[in-house]
Structures are given as structure tokens and as C-alpha cells.
């Protein structure tokens, strides 16, 4: 049924339709509306046979998720930002143990400086955790990816993070098509665990493994992600037959076939980029976009196939690997290895900085002119940066950087963007 609703609410409805048996979460912006919604649905009886557990921290949230998933219960949680860092040890354990937990990450920056707004550094900090990571472009896709995520997780026995841009998607009202229970049931069968803690058939889960088998157990995790690489397109096709929509998959190409310039990005910024690409196409530029939907496993072959006929590639990412530059770019460069392409990394939208069509137009035009640096920080205020660098060069006790730079920026209450 078509509805005009908040992204968080759409996701809560999707999770509810997946018949979860345990939901445990600790509130943190911008994820909170999702689990609040689910809490109400469990309490009102809209979601049945489900235990909603309030926990005392994110570490507890993931620990409870591990425990419940190990008993064979379909388990869901959600977090963001510092929350994912606080549960980090348990995040690795969930994947290491092969437990198909589904977790929404309402993408938000990581402090310090503390910042509640959107970027991708929280999810990407866990890129090597062994979880599958899927990124949503719209609220419709966020809704759909949760249904896909449970099926994918349970088929390969790995946990899945569904990443959606905090605030930009979670707090946006837009049109979504909420499927029926019958459709979801037809797609997602009841969970058949590979392992379950059961007093009538006791096993232990979580062995200590020494050098004699550690590499083999870890290789198995990689093998399962490679299985997921095969499975994700198949599930997207199945999803389309039941729900009638293209959602999920490994990558989404937009006007890339004849493109000389291809922009690579993840998440909700793809929409704005497509609008810019349409305008530049009208002006005669051969430009296209490649959206990465599955970041882990990373679809090296698909990315390479999409990029190989281009002249230049601009990876626009909402993340920063301090000391080298891009996070997503590193993987895209690996996919491009051996191809004679100009590669650019653009760090944009950190901590909620608006990414505007105007800035993107100027950026892509610069790339096409061959004037774009290897690493660019979109719309960086160099005055503020240089002023602080100068302060630090001339004064030993230069004081806390963030506070000084905020003073230099001045009042922001009057700003629109």
C-alpha cells in the first residue's frame, strides 16, 4: 500500500512484517524512531510472538542479539555512530559466530567533535567486521533492503547491516509502498538456523580456536561473503517477481554505458547526483553514476565492468580515512587496477554538510576539465582551516581546535543549509 510516511516508520513496518522474534536496542539519534515504532507495534499486538527487550547500552544490545540469535530466534537491532563503536567487540563476535542478525545503521558521524548529523564513517568503521553491509538510496529501498536482509542473512548465516542515511532518510517523509504480510511471507520463509542453543540437544557455540584452525574458520567467513556476492543478485530478482520493484542487488548503474565520466557513490546522495547528471547530459556531457548497494561483500567485478570504458572516475564518499583519504575509493581503485583511468576521491557531506547540486556541478566540470586533484574535500572552508593551522604554528598553547574553529566560523543559527 502506498503511504506518505517517515523513513524510520517505513523501516519499522518492514521489520515488523519480517516476523522478528527478538528486538533489542538502545536509543541513539538518528535511529531512535525506528525502534520506538517497533516498540509500539509489539506493545499494541500489531507484531506478535516477539519480545522487545530494553537494554542498558549498545554493547548490551548486540550481546542480547547474539544470545537470542544463537537460540534460533530471528533477531533485529538498530544503532548509529558512537553506538556502533560501543558495541564493536560484539559486532565482530556476531559475524564470527555466523549469527544472522539484521541491524539498521542510521548513518551518523563519529566524534570527536561530537556531531549527530549524517555521514558514513560509522558503518564504514565496521567494514572488516565480517557483516554484510547494504546501503539504501531511498526510503523505499531502505524498507525493501530489510526484507532482503533477513533472507540473505539467514541463507548464508551471516549478520547484515542495512545502512540508511541518518536524518536525510530516517527523518524524511516520502512515498513508500508498504508490502502486504502475504508478500513478505512468500519471500521470507521461517528461519531455519544452522546452529541453535537448545537444552534438549546441547551444543556449545564459541569455541576457542588456535593456530591449527583459526585461518580456516576465518576463511570460511570470507567464503560466505563470496557466496553472498552470488546470492544478492538472485535475491533481488526474486524480490522483483514478488514485490514488482528493483531493490537491492550489488550495484545500480545510471547512464554509465557511454559515459566518459562516472561518479561512484553510496546512499541517498545518489539522487542528487542523478539530477546533476541529467542536467549535464542535456548540456552534452557524457557522464553517469554508479551506485554501490552492497559495500560488503564488495562487488569488484561489477564495479570494474561498469567503469572499464570510462575515462575518469570520481568517487564521492561521505567518509574519510584520516591519513590516506578515501575509504570507498580504496576499494573502487582495487576494482580498477590495471585500467588506465583517472581516479579522483572526493570527501563530501561529513557531519551533515549539505551536498548541493551547485557544488556537484562545479566539481564534475572540474573533473572533466582535468583540473580535479586526486583528493578533494568538497566545499571545505580553507580560511577556517588555514587560520587554525597558523594559530598552531605560532602558538604552543593554541587551545582546543574545535572550539577555536567554531569561533572563527561565527554564528550558524542564521544559516539555512
Amino acid at each position, binding site marked *: 500500500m502506498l503511504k506518505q510516511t517517515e523513513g524510520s516508520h517505513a523501516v519499522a513496518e518492514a521489520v515488523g512484517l519480517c516476523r522478528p522474534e527478538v528486538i533489542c536496542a538502545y536509543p541513539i539519534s538518528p535511529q531512535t524512531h525506528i525502534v520506538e515504532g517497533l516498540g509500539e507495534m509489539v506493545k499494541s499486538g500489531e507484531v506478535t510472538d516477539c519480545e522487545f527487550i530494553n537494554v542498558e547500552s549498545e554493547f548490551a544490545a548486540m550481546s542480547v542479539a547474539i544470545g537470542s540469535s544463537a537460540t534460533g530466534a530471528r533477531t533485529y537491532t538498530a544503532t548509529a555512530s558512537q553506538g556502533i563503536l560501543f558495541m564493536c567487540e560484539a559486532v565482530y563476535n556476531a559475524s564470527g559466530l555466523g549469527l544472522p542478525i539484521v541491524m539498521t545503521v542510521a548513518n551518523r558521524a563519529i566524534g570527536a567533535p561530537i556531531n549527530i548529523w549524517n555521514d558514513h564513517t560509522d558503518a564504514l568503521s565496521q567494514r572488516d567486521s565480517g557483516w554484510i553491509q547494504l546501503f539504501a538510496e531511498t526510503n523505499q529501498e531502505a524498507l525493501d533492503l530489510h526484507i532482503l536482509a533477513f533472507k540473505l542473512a539467514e541463507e548464508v548465516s551471516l549478520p547484515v547491516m542495512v545502512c540508511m542515511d541518518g536524518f536525510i532518510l530516517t527523518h524524511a517523509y516520502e512515498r513508500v509502498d508498504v508490502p502486504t504480510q502475504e508478500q513478505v511471507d512468500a519471500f521470507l520463509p521461517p528461519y531455519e538456523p544452522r546452529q541453535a542453543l537448545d537444552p534438549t540437544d546441547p551444543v556449545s557455540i564459541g569455541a576457542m580456536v588456535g593456530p591449527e584452525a583459526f585461518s580456516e574458520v576465518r576463511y570460511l567467513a570470507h567464503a560466505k561473503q563470496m557466496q553472498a556476492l552470488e546470492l544478492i543478485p538472485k535475491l533481488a530478482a526474486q524480490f522483483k517477481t514478488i514485490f514488482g520493484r528493483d531493490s537491492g542487488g550489488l550495484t545500480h548503474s545510471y547512464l554509465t554505458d557511454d559515459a566518459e565520466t562516472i561518479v561512484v557513490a553510496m546512499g541517498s546522495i*545518489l539522487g542528487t547526483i542523478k539530477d546533476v547528471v541529467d542536467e549535464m547530459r542535456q548540456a552534452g556531457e557524457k557522464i553517469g553514476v554508479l551506485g554501490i548497494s552492497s559495500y560488503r561483500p564488495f562487488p569488484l567485478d561489477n564495479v570494474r565492468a561498469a567503469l572499464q570504458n570510462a575515462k575518469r572516475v570520481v568517487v564521492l564518499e561521505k567518509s574519510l580515512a584520516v591519513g590516506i583519504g578515501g575509504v570507498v575509493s580504496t576499494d573502487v581503485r582495487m576494482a580498477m587496477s590495471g585500467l588506465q583511468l583517472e581516479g579522483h576521491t572526493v570527501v563530501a557531506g561529513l557531519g551533515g554538510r549539505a551536498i548541493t547540486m551547485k557544488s556537484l556541478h562545479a566539481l564534475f566540470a572540474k573533473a572533466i576539465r582535468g583540473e580535479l586533484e586526486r583528493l578533494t574535500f568538497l566545499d571545505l572552508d580553507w580560511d577556517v582551516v588555514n587560520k587554525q593551522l597558523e594559530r598552531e604554528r605560532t602558538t604552543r598553547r593554541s587551545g582546543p581546535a574545535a572550539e577555536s574553529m567554531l569561533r572563527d566560523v561565527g554564528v550558524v543559527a*542564521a544559516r*539555512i543549509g
Partner: protein
Amino acid sequence: MFQVRIHGRGGQGVVTAAEMLSIAAFEEGRHAQAFPSFGSERTGAPVVAFCRIADQEIRLREPIMEPDALIIQDPTLLFQVDVFSGLKKGGYILINTSRSFTDLGLADFVRDWPEERLLTVPATDLSRKHVGRPMPNVPLLAGFAAASGIIRLESVIKAINTKFSEKIARNNIAAATEAYQFVTDEIAGASHQEAAHA
């Protein structure tokens, strides 16, 4: 695409107003996208929310920097925030006030504006009268419907019924209906004046 920017203060239902506007547009079969300017959601702090309305899917996610319409829920913001930033020439300006644009010190700014695009609604008063609380968002939305014709009053009422429980909805519908009539009369007055000038 039609773009609306709503300015107000935390606690005045600014974000809810944008969401309701998107629901009203959806009810008329249109695509709509509402989102807040995130963060400073403290009571009394300046808050901005946005709504785009279009006939096809809306992919753009940037803040609305060149609105077709402005709804200003708190006139004290006029001197604190650059509320008019990027407003399209001749765009709709709807202010919650019982004073005139001239009294608000805006005569120079709106000198070349079409009269029927400059609208005031005593939305706080209407809200106090019907809802018993100073919550100007709904009367302003109804005023926007009357001013722009982008959405119908019936769609605003549907959005009210989606968002609020029965009793609060009923009171808000009364406030919305009076605000709609107020702006309709205001526009009729403006065109009457223009005719007199002609």
C-alpha cells in the same frame, strides 16, 4: 517542482507542518518530500523544515535554498535569521502575525511583490482559540493552501486526521478552516484593491 521552506522555533510544530504538507500533497496523488533541518531542535531555537512537491519522483536531497514559498511561523525570526534567503522573486510569503508587512518593517523588501503573494495569518491566535495552545503550524498550512492552491483544504484536513488523535484533530480542523477563510478573504481584498488602483 514546488518548494516550500518553513521557518519557526522549536516547539511550534515546524517539522510537523512540513510533514503534513507532504501528506496533503500525497493525498492529491503527487510526490512529496518533507525533511527537517537537523539538529537545533531545542525549544525556542530557530528551526527550518522543507517540503518539495512534484509530479514525478523527487531525487534531490539538498536543503531548499531557492523556495517558491516561505511560511514564517514566528515573526521575531525576521531579524534573527535570513529567512528570505534565496526566495524566488514574487514567491509566496506567509507570516504568522496580526500585523501588516509594513508594520513588520518589510515594505521595502516586498515593494515589487504581487499583493496576492503577501499574506498574513494570525495563526497563534487561531490556534489558541480552537486548540487552546499556541501551535501556529496547522492554521498556516491551511492559509498556504488558500494562498497557493497547491493543495486543497480537504487534503490539509486529511493530513490533520493522519497526524492527530480525534479530539485534537477536530480542534485543528476548526482552526484550519477559519485560517483558510481568512486568507481567502485577504486575497479577495488584495485583488479588490488592485482593481481599485487600475
